[in-house]
């Protein structure tokens, strides 16, 4: 049996008044796991902990079986999309997507191939040479997603990636997320508050309350029958 893609083992963590003790969670390779729960329950902190932006006081964090607890974020090979995208304003869409490849000192030819491939996958090839300042919310998030996927991470961490965009674009992006996750076979940890968004993407749902997983629900066929598609709306 293969190692879980993300594994937290008896993790203890404290920041300010927030505390998480003896926290364990396991997400399989190729699984789409959605974490939900009330504000302040520790969802974003958990994502940052896995990304290496915070360190646990005790316990282990493993990615694809490798203990990454002491590993800095740049050596974890994870893709991370924050809530508001946080695109680099001094770069174009292409420049943002290229970033992860540039810092890995990959040849220009290979960078361009990877950028084109991920832009096709997310249907943003027409935006590549645009400044990020004029992008819509959905385009921003797709660019942020492309930037996080271009170096082929094994794990994708999404912190409310569609919360700041309108409902129609949100549905479309959720379908895109699920399609890409299946195509790449990567594990996704997605933080969300939105019930519909969860229905569209989740394989399993974890409900986080005060730093503890209160319940985990498995779903049989996520996004199999999204209501708007059932009503005959076109997505493209």
């Amino acid at each position, binding site marked *: 049996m293969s190692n879980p893609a993300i594994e937290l083992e008896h993790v203890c963590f404290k920041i300010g008044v927030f505390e998480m003790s003896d926290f364990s969670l396991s997400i399989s390779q190729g699984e789409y796991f959605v974490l939900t729960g009330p504000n302040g329950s520790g969802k974003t902190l958990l994502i*940052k902990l896995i*990304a*290496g*932006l915070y360190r646990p006081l005790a316990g282990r964090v493993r990615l694809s079986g490798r203990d990454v607890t002491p590993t*800095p*974020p*740049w050596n*974890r*090979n*994870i*893709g*991370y999309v*924050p809530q508001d995208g*946080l695109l*680099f*304003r*001094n770069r174009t869409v292409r420049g943002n997507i290229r*970033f*992860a490849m*540039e*810092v*890995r000192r990959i040849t220009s030819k290979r960078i361009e191939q990877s950028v084109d491939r991920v832009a096709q996958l997310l249907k943003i090839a027409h935006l590549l040479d645009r400044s990020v300042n004029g992008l819509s919310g959905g385009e921003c998030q797709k660019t942020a997603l492309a*930037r*996080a996927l271009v*170096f082929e991470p094994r794990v994708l*961490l999404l912190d409310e990636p569609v919360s700041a965009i309108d409902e129609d674009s949100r549905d479309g992006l959720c379908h895109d997320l699920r399609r890409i996750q299946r195509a790449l076979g990567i594990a996704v940890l997605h933080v969300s508050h939105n019930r519909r968004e969860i229905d569209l993407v989740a394989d399993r749902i974890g409900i986080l309350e005060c730093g503890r997983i209160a319940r985990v629900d498995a779903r049989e066929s996520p996004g199999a029958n999204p209501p708007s598609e059932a009503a005959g709306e076109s997505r493209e």
Partner: protein
Amino acid sequence: MPSSPRASYGKWFDILLAIPLAGYLLLIAGLVCAIFLAITPGEVSAALADHDIWDAILLSMITSTLSTFLSVVVAIPAGYILSRHRFWGHSLADTLLDLPIVLPPLVMGLCVLLFFSTGVGYWLDRGIVEEGLFIYQPLGIVLVQFIVGCAFAVRVIKSGFDALDPSYEEVAMTLGAGRWQTFYKVTLANVAPAILAGAVISWARIFGLFGPVLLVAGTMRGRTEIMPTTIYLEQSIGHLGVALVIGAMMIVISMAMLILFKRFGGKGLIW
């Protein structure tokens, strides 16, 4: 169809508030014009033919540029640390940084002179070169210019770091950028306008610095004379025309720097 005009209420309210602005602008324009109207072509050509004045202009440009460069080199890491970290003594460090801004420049010059009269200061000044490195030397000009200019540069550059959400750096690190790569590819790249503004503010302050330069480096013709001290020297020996020409040159150089700054991206940050 023409676009709808923006609703405007209280026209007299705006006009009343605009009066102080117009008055102040007139005052500045009047003062600048006064210098240009007071100088004659003969005084300009006499000043331009004087080698000592050219030496002063050259030394002014070299020392101002060098001390601005040093100020920015120190202000970037200092501004970053003060912006991103809270440490023991942070408030004290922050207050100390404001000291060269609020302290009268002459007092700052006296402090420098006093320092070089102590054991450590004397060794630093005379330990390597017998005639001294700083006191009555061009390096002394750079030192006092740096002390004053660096505080301004740190203030402006730190405000740039304050305005940049640290989350951008976090995202860069998750994308594979190490600490140094994140710093120069994301942090510095996004704070570049603030760095440029810091350099210009620092240069503007340094370029006109007079009191502490006079105290520490004196004003020796062809050796430690810079443009502000030339004005002092010339008017003290009754050559008011030459002093006015140098003043007008300083205005032109300062204006050229501001225009260059606005042209190359500084607009919108502090102007």
